[in-house]
């Protein structure tokens, strides 16, 4: 990251953060596009299809715009070609088909690489870049666009021209592709329609560009131009507004920039802007702190007045603004008089700024002193009522169309560190609350009803705050899943297989750290699934399956945990093969008797790799054992399930948060420890008849017909010598990863409560059997145990009985 006090660096950071969002919506669009293709089998566009393309176009375009601002030339050039292809697709010059989709997918991957490269200051593989560009170029090449594509970007760098809003397209298909044409026009000389620096008149526009006034009629060319007939409610085809905008000095003083407002307007449709500079004094009288300029904006748009006013929402008190529907007179004025002389003020404008709109005179509000506050307080965009003009109704009818654009709920970007701080504070609060309840108990107030209920409420509040903070940190897994889409494409291409990725539950929210740590294991699992899980197309056809393999990635919440499954519809695990390999590598004894699930679990052993030859894809040293240890590091579990001929499913189950956990506080050998509640299925007090010696050192408890092996926690943790008898002790029955059960012997159960997880990384190395620590109400530290690890460790310690598989002999 850059130094925080460099403003450009900050904007840069914001830009790249936005890029991520844009890339995400691009991926969304591609996915929707793919689905449409699949659904219609290559049939031509439909309404939804057009909108999809528009979404993609917008995303690519915005990335390009920002890249231009930061002079990221590679990115600009590439985004431009990409955009050209999308534009061609949008205007129907390119037919959507599989081939096109493939190119677009590759281009999207490339674009995201370029963004990443630009962000990290690295460079992309030039071959991949040129290949992707070439593919794009070929698509539009035959239309003579390639020259433009190559030539334009340089000029484009300064061209914000966001122009044609996609919105309009899907909605009013009637009078031709109006914004499309606008795009064509503007892509060449878009900037010339806008005053740069706020002071130029637009007759400064180079002669090469079409006369400004030509845009309007050009854009509306197919429409019934004259039908408005001077009425105040023009027909839809002519929908547009004449906006007179005169900023007060206060607008500039409060850091607003009219250019941005104009840009936003430009995004709504076809726009022509004229600068009014009649109040501009002679240079020597010019006070640089005052505002002298105003603008007349002729905007063709499908949006209604309210949408336009919304743009000015923040500055409405700081300027003089009038919005009136476009009239034929306006059109004529645009066409006829050009921009040479200041236009006569429109009727609306006259009403608003009767005194000839000298900026100074319109500054009345400037001295009021409250504008600034009002502006700040207006935080979430509030919609001004479209009260002015009865024509609002007609336009409002088109409003639902705007719903096509995903309604972005107002969001705030917050530094993750701040959230972490908040989280820590909440953690302290939880500890404090525990302390308080202990104090109350000590003070003998435990029976006091008021005290009790107050404390209960406090607990509830603490938990609510905690949940809310967790929710802030939670993010949908969607970006992660989208990244997997790329992994699937790339690994399928490398393996020569045809693979489709199906994702479900993308909206499932998981703690950010969890998502970040999941990327690597998921990538590996997906690669594995493509490489080893799925068969080749020939094999698949022979087995009576479609040639295209399917990998399904599903996320969901299940009983307070997040469950992510990766499944393929491949051949399933070849157990004989796995077994042989494991035996070859000395991971299991040749004659060991293994159940099917035990064989499947061999995949998780370090040093295991089924691929005969290490392929380029998987088997690059990251084995499933690493996947498992990463998952376990997140206090998660991974399970494998395979059906011969039908495929393999990996199930990852993760805690919702890494910060807090519901635990059972128990005492053993004078020490207080916490056992995660999620792992405990039941607790019981065994009678002497329930306990059975099954070996020299092992005892089992008989539970509903099955034997469950006991693990003396005090001895396992080295707190005391092994107990001679477990009678009178409490047994915690825990469920292990492989669904087997073990019983932990403890002295007593103290409490069941939420505890804050404190990492142990600052102490010395990994402690076997201990997942983390927490701070109890009395300020002492209690260890949070990892039952899985305790059992595994105990088994390892005792055993040399071959594989480090979870001991199953005592499970029923």
């Amino acid at each position, binding site marked *: 990251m850059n130094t925080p006090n460099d403003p450009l660096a900050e904007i840069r950071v914001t830009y790249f953060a936005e890029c991520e969002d844009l890339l995400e919506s691009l991926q969304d669009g591609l996915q929707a596009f793919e689905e449409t293709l699949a659904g219609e089998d290559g049939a031509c566009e439909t309404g939804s299809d057009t909108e999809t393309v528009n979404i993609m176009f917008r995303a690519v375009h915005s990335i390009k715009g920002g890249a231009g601002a930061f002079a990221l030339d590679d990115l600009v050039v590439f985004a431009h070609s990409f955009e050209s292809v999308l534009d061609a697709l949008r205007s129907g010059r390119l037919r959507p088909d599989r081939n096109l989709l493939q190119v677009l997918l590759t281009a999207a991957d490339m674009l995201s690489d370029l963004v990443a490269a630009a962000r990290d200051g690295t460079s992309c593989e030039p071959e991949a870049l040129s290949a992707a560009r070439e593919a794009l170029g070929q698509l539009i090449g035959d239309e003579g666009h390639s020259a433009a594509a190559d030539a334009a970007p340089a000029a484009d760098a300064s061209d914000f021209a966001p122009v044609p809003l996609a919105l309009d397209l899907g909605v009013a298909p009637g009078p031709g592709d109006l914004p499309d044409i606008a795009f064509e026009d503007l892509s060449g000389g878009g900037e010339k329609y806008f005053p740069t620096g706020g002071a130029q008149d637009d007759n400064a526009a180079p002669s090469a560009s079409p006369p400004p006034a030509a845009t309007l009629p050009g854009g509306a060319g197919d429409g019934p131009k004259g039908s408005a007939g001077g009425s105040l409610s023009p027909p839809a085809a002519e929908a547009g507004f004449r906006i007179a905008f005169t900023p007060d000095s206060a607008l500039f003083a409060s850091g607003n920039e009219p250019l941005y407002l104009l840009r936003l307007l430009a995004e709504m449709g076809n726009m022509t802007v004229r600068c009014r500079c009649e109040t501009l004094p002679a240079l020597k009288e010019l006070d640089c702190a005052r505002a002298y300029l105003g603008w007349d904006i002729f905007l063709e748009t499908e949006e209604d007045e309210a949408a336009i006013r919304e743009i000015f929402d923040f500055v409405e008190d700081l300027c003089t603004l009038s919005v009136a529907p476009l009239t034929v007179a306006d059109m004529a004025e645009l066409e006829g008089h050009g921009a040479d002389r200041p236009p006569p003020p429109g009727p609306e404008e006259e009403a608003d700024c009767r005194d000839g709109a000298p900026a100074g005179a319109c500054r009345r509000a400037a001295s009021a002193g409250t504008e600034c506050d009002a502006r700040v307080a207006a935080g979430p965009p509030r919609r001004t009522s479209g009260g002015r003009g009865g024509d609002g109704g007609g336009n409002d009818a088109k409003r639902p169309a705007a719903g096509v654009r995903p309604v972005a709920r107002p969001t705030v970007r917050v530094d993750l560190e701040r959230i972490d701080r908040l989280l820590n504070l909440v953690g302290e609060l939880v500890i404090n609350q525990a302390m308080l309840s202990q104090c109350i108990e000590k003070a003998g107030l435990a029976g006091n009803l008021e005290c009790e209920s107050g404390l209960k409420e406090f607990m509830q509040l603490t938990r609510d705050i905690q949940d809310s903070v967790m929710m802030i940190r939670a993010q949908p897994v969607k970006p992660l899943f989208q990244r997997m889409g790329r992994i699937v494409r790339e690994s399928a291409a490398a393996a020569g297989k045809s693979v489709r990725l199906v994702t479900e539950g993308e909206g499932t929210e998981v703690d950010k750290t969890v998502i970040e740590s999941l990327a690597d294991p998921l990538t590996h699992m997906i690669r594995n699934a493509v490489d080893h899980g799925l068969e080749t197309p020939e094999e698949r056809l022979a087995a009576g399956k479609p040639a295209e393999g399917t990998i399904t990635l599903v996320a969901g919440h299940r009983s307070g945990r997040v469950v992510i499954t990766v499944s393929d519809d491949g051949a399933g695990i070849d157990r004989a093969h796995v077994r042989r390999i494991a035996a070859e590598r000395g991971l299991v004894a040749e004659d060991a008797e293994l159940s099917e699930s035990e064989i499947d679990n061999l995949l998780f052993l370090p040093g295991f790799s089924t691929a005969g030859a290490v392929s380029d894809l998987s088997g690059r040293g990251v084995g499933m054992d690493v996947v498992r240890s990463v998952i376990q590091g997140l206090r998660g579990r991974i399970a494998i399930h395979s059906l011969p001929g039908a495929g393999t499913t990996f199930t990852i189950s993760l805690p919702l948060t890494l910060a807090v956990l519901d635990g059972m506080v128990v005492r053993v050998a004078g020490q207080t420890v916490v056992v995660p509640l999620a792992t405990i299925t039941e607790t019981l007090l065994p009678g002497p008849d329930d306990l059975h010696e099954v070996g020299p050192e092992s005892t089992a408890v008989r539970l509903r017909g099955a034997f469950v092996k006991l693990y003396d926690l005090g001895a396992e943790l080295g707190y005391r010598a092994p107990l001679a008898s477990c009678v009178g002790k409490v047994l915690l029955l825990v469920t292990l990863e492989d669904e087997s059960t073990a019983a932990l012997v403890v002295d007593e159960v103290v409490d069941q409560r939420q505890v804050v997880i*404190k990492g142990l990384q*600052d102490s010395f190395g990994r402690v076997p059997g201990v997942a983390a620590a927490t701070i109890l109400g009395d300020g002492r530290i209690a260890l949070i145990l990892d039952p899985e690890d305790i059992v595994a460790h105990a088994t390892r310690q005792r055993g040399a009985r071959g594989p480090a598989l979870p001991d199953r002999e005592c499970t029923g």
Partner: protein
Amino acid sequence: MKQVEQEMSDNADADRGTDATCGGGSSPGGGEAAELLSFRAGGQEYAIDIMSVREIRGWTSATPLPHAPPAVRGVINLRGRVLAILDLSDRLGLGRTGTAERNVVIVVGTGSEGTEHHAGLLVEAVSDILTVPCSALQPPPEAIGDGTRGLVSALVMVDGVMVRILDIDAVLPGGESDAA
């Protein structure tokens, strides 16, 4: 909770660690002085560079860590942070420190800022803050055969008593081979 006897400057000096004690104490060069915190552990006088000291606090019983090296006495709660406590006497092979009231924990920080690693050293008592000229530091004799080999970076005579200056990074397990 026991009182914090003495708060040390939390300033993380980039130049701390043994480097501040005149380059590991081997070369008596320059007129610079080393500031050391001296203390008793296992009945002997030791010292560490004062810049690595974060605070000194009274002994509170620690929560033992299972399967940890014997010198690790456990973990305590240091204002919401889990702090591992190392019995310095045990670490130096001088036997376990008794649990007397006077025992103190010296909280030390090693590593660079941001990734600082904290640990507590259980010692018998803190003695003094010493300022010794770098020229007075002597390299430890090669022949040290006890458990302190590699842990003592220099020796210095103060008022006729030999003070062993510890290499704090070597003392703390983690960088060393005896990490669990």
